[in-house]
């Protein structure tokens, strides 16, 4: 086609080949010196190709963390793994393979990705605002070069046909502009809106994550039925804070665990599997601990109290034991939390009687180690002390006794679940280790006149995770916008249609209709055909003399462009 050899192809003609509205990318450094190279680097970083590579690298980088134990999830597992793989462990440690998701390399990839995203999306946003304010781009000079094209001759006047086409396009919801003897129109701007919204929401997600990791903290607390808790550093069993959230920032509140209900499967394949856990509490917020509100916490239903969320994460039994010394004075009484060792809640624990007083004129303390079995096996000879079912159907307590110095007075913090027997001797009876198996209500007279122990009953305990995490709302808003954006971006088709009616030399009018899809899978041909058939109501086609039919002007082969 002679008119095109001398002419630069239109923008639209170029995009026609690529079926996308993504900006064109340039490969070579342009300009000179440092600035040229910097610009080139920036352009590379914000190019689709690099975005693709970074995305791919991100997915690869995420894999090791799913196969190697991670400190952030289970530091204990990491320690075991290191012991089992002594040769590679130091290398892994250096490569931060135990902390993949906070490692330098993982962070570098996603930060680069977000920089690339900003460099790509922000200019696109401005560009798009410009597009919205301008009219749809005018018809290219040669419509036959467009990917979809139709034409016919009519007796109707060119002006009238153009005006009719303008009206019809408007009615179909196109933004249309009639100028210079042709109609230009475009539809599906929501696609671009969706695409921009989606990519921008990714920043909101990142901001939400960032805020959360800078300003959140969480702690754990075990509470026995009937006992209370107030949210302070001294009362928490453990606490992890962050840069902007330390122990002094803990939200002021507290609660009392009234009781804990649990139920378990009693028949079938899954006997003993948990069915329900509920912690019934009364809580207060602020300084006033007398105004109590009732609340329930379940496994999937945390309770929001004064800026923190309280999650139920564990539970177990606390046998209630009373200890009397040789004189019959009560020296210890109350529940002691035992820790579950298996799914049937075979539990182990330690009871420390630090206020025992004197024996034989010497200051003495008692310690007990033991098992609590909610449903004890009838016979321990083969299995040892185990529980057969997690519910308290036949509770039994097995105890060993120690006397001496617990080491609690040394001032060093002690693990309440462990007995330090360095300065203690285990009590013996008839030349054997003294040991007892108690049912609720039963008692045990300790050997050598140490007094008595009674097993009064059992209570339950629940452990809670108290978590303060801001930024959730930001991340959630980002997530919702991202989904909405995606739906628009992937399902709206953006396309342009042009109509040009011109007077042919023979006095008739030539009507040309052409379309360009700006995204994949556009049903543009069907749409164009529909429009053209409708337009024939205003511009009826005249019978063609085959030799002059406009169909003869076959559209240029798109790939053989000069």
């Amino acid at each position: 086609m002679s008119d095109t050899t001398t002419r630069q192809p239109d923008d639209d003609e170029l995009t026609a080949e690529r079926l996308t509205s993504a900006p064109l990318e340039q490969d070579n450094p342009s300009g000179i010196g440092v600035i040229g190279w910097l610009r080139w680097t920036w352009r590379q970083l914000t190019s689709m190709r690099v975005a693709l590579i970074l995305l791919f690298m991100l997915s690869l980088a995420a894999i090791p963390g799913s196969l190697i134990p991670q400190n952030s999830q289970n530091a204990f597992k990491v320690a075991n793994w290191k012991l089992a793989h002594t040769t590679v462990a130091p290398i892994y440690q250096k490569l931060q393979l135990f902390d993949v998701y906070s490692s330098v390399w993982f962070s570098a990839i996603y930060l680069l990705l977000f920089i690339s995203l900003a460099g790509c999306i922000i200019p696109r946003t401005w560009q798009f605002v410009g597009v919205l304010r301008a009219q749809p781009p005018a018809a290219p000079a040669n419509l036959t070069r467009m990917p979809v094209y139709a034409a016919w001759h009519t007796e109707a006047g060119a002006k009238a046909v153009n005006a009719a086409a303008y009206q019809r396009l408007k009615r179909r919801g196109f933004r249309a502009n009639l100028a210079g003897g042709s109609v230009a129109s475009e539809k599906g701007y929501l696609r671009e809106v969706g695409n921009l919204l989606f990519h921008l929401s990714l920043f909101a997600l990142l901001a939400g994550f960032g805020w959360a990791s800078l300003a959140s903290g969480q702690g754990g607390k075990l509470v026995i039925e009937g006992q209370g808790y107030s949210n302070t550093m001294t009362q928490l069993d453990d606490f992890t804070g962050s840069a902007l959230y330390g122990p002094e920032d803990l939200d002021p509140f507290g609660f009392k665990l009234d009781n804990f209900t649990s139920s378990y499967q009693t028949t079938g394949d899954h006997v003993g599997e948990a069915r329900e856990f509920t912690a019934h509490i009364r809580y207060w917020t602020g300084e006033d601990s007398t105004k109590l509100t009732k609340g329930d916490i379940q496994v999937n239903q945390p309770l929001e109290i004064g800026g923190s969320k309280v999650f139920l994460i564990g539970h177990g039994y606390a046998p209630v034991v009373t200890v009397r010394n040789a004189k019959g004075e009560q020296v210890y009484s109350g529940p002691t939390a035992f820790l579950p060792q298996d799914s049937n809640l075979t539990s182990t624990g330690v009871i420390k009687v630090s206020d025992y007083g004197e024996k034989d004129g010497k200051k003495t303390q008692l310690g007990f180690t033991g098992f609590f079995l909610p449903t004890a096996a009838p016979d321990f000879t083969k299995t040892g002390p185990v529980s057969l079912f997690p519910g308290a159907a036949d509770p039994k307590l097995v105890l060993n006794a120690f006397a001496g110095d617990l080491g609690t007075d040394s001032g060093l913090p002690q693990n309440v679940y462990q007995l330090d027997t360095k300065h203690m001797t285990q009590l013996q009876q008839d030349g054997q280790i003294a040991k007892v198996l108690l049912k609720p209500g039963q008692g045990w007279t300790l050997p050598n006149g140490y007094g008595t122990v009674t097993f009064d009953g059992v209570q339950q305990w629940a452990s809670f995770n108290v978590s303060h995490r801001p930024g959730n709302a930001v991340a959630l808003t980002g997530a919702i916008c991202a989904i909405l954006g995606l739906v628009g971006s992937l399902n709206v088709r953006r396309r342009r249609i042009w109509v040009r009616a011109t007077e042919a030399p023979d006095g008739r009018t030539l009507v040309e209709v052409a379309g360009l899809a700006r995204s994949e899978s556009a049903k543009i041909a069907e749409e164009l055909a529909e429009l053209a058939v409708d337009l024939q109501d205003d511009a009826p086609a005249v019978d063609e003399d085959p030799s002059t039919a406009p169909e003869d002007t076959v559209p240029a082969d798109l790939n053989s462009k000069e």
Partner: protein
Amino acid sequence: MPNVSGVDLQLADLSNKLIYAAMAVYLLAMFSHIFEWTFGSKGAVAVRSAEQATLAETVAASGPAKAVKKVTVTVASAGGGTTTLTRTALADAGATVVTSGRGDNDDVDGPGAAGTSEKGDLAGRIAISLTVLAALLHIGGVVARGLSVSRWPWGNMYEFSCAFALTTVLAYLGLLVAKKNVRWLGLPVTVAVVLTLGLAVSVLYTESEQLVPALHSYWLAIHVSAAIICGGAFYAGFAATALYLGKDSYDRRMAAGLTTGPFGTSASIWQRLPAAATLDKLSYRINALVFPLWTFTIIAGAIWAEAAWGKYWEWDPKETWSFITWVIYACYLHARATAGWKGRKAAYLALLAFACFLFNYYGVNIFVTGKHSYAGVG
């Protein structure tokens, strides 16, 4: 006979029987589809052509007094050739006929599995009827399972698998009802369903039970249903992608003068499938449609995790692999949007993404332990 633990054993038993019955009928449907393909290979493969346009003209001409409106749109196709689409309508009347005549051979959709064989066509129809019957039994099985425990029937891997297979079949039947030309998908769909159910009843089976408290949440209904639907749809996208790659190889081999399809397969199989471009478009459509739903699935999972464990994202293996799957699908969509990455290269990415999805489903549940490991396997 509801018992203490809240499981209706009769219904649970009925559910198992229905699932087995559905499997048997799917198996018959699969054989029927195999017959369809076999008979089809004997019939000549007709090429649909622009001749059909004459049909349109006859219809249009039947309105004697009325003027006929006819437009032929020329469409540039990817290979550099052109195709045409003709739309014919009567002036001021509704009747419209659309035909797509094709200008070159590249883009011709094949006639489907049955070719032009009538026996093959009959086998295909029988296969579809059997699939419908099996789907009804299958629905019955899933519903009975849910009723037996009065909850959503996807609390463990056995139940996910049954539901996932069902969504695949329903997606396929839905496309057929919408009059899409997808009967050629019948064989891959029935094979996948028979395999999934087979694995479910043998390896993954667990008795009907109530849920552990960690799964007591309406998020189970939301998050897991979404995941199951994604699974079914991703599978359909995968089948279309794989067939696209096969058809494309076949086209290249033909161009190079060879007479068989890839891996020595019979050319007749590939001739009967839709054109490579059609398969490619279909796979893109499906994947683009599911991607937002998959995004939603992950976000719903994160919200649930926040409610259950206090943190919405902990890089638990299941979360990690969902993320990896998501990123690779995003790569695929990006690749499609950039020039030079259409066709085969993008298709490989789609296959990789589906492989990640499958690994997340089977691999992570079975081999990797994490917080999601209560799926009731082993």
